[in-house]
């Protein structure tokens, strides 16, 4: 199943509006829409707040965000989430919590969320990193969905440099074909 279908990597700096908020997305950044829930939530309600995150394959953890994004964007008080032992980011201690995360499919070839298709559950077996509110470094400017997410969720991703888009999908026969083609 395709989760992100030819999601464009936009060449220009854009301002994104969601609710009454504005965020900047710089050129070349890959934008995805997510929602975060308490771990016992089986599936998101239709009115669940969705928020933007950047797909960052250089990030060596599944998901990291600022405390205030969890509170203000996802509507969750981090204190209501089961805690896990912390992690160190850049040598500094950062909190870790158990949640469920859902990623929303895009309209094929566009950045917009496709409301006709259901979201896809992303397993976060090692939890998510939440920068404490009093941290000297408040954390990344936008939430980061790291490269390990693709590994722990067994997802394929393909970048089309010519058309400047990426496709992310669950495992299909295409994986075997790509593996074969990569050998030649």
């Amino acid at each position: 199943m395709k989760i992100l279908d030819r999601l464009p990597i936009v060449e220009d700096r854009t301002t994104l509006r969601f609710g009454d908020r504005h965020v900047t997305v710089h050129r070349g950044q890959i934008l995805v829409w997510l929602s975060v829930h308490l771990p016992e939530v089986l599936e998101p309600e239709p009115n669940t707040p969705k928020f933007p995150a950047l797909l960052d394959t250089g990030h060596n953890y599944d998901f990291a965000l600022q405390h205030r994004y969890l509170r203000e964007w996802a509507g969750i008080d981090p204190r209501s989430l089961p805690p896990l032992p912390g992690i160190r980011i850049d040598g500094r201690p950062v909190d870790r919590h158990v949640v469920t995360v859902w990623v929303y499919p895009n309209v094929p070839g566009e950045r917009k969320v496709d409301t006709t298709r259901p979201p896809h559950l992303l397993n976060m077996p090692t939890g998510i990193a939440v920068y404490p509110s009093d941290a000297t470094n408040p954390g990344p400017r936008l939430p980061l969905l790291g490269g390990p997410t693709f590994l722990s969720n067994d997802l394929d991703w393909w970048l089309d440099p010519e058309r400047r888009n990426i496709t992310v999908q669950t495992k299909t026969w295409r994986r075997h074909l790509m593996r074969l083609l990569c050998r030649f």
Partner: protein
Amino acid sequence: MIELTPEQRQALDRQNGEAVRVVDPATKDTYLLIREEVFSRRSEVVLPISQEPPADMDPQLFRCMRAYWRDLPELLKDKRNRGKWAAYRGDERVCVGKTQAEVYQECYRRGMEREEFYVGLIQEEPGDLPPWAVLEVDRSLYEFTELGEPPSEDG
């Protein structure tokens, strides 16, 4: 030059040439102690990952995690378990379910509080790291902008 304490020398001996992590209790900053010749020989230093629980970890949660870690090899032997989630309270397994949410719901249905149990995924852990290991993550998101661009908005 700062001289090694006997405690640091013993820690280095136990590491067989690998780096020893040293923490500054005041700032919580961590440092690596490694023989100079080993450091200069390597382009990449292998960071030791502590198998010990963090000092401030809830002992009840640690007990649950240890039970999960103890049972994981056995659970993995049955292929039907792979990709499922298992809940532990104390030393005992509470249930196994298809999704994390299902397992949480089952634990709450049985009247447990969230601090009482741990839910872990049944899969081979990359790097064989126990769930209580303190993970090391690099800072990320270095953004490139043109000179003169207005500041970024962040909600």
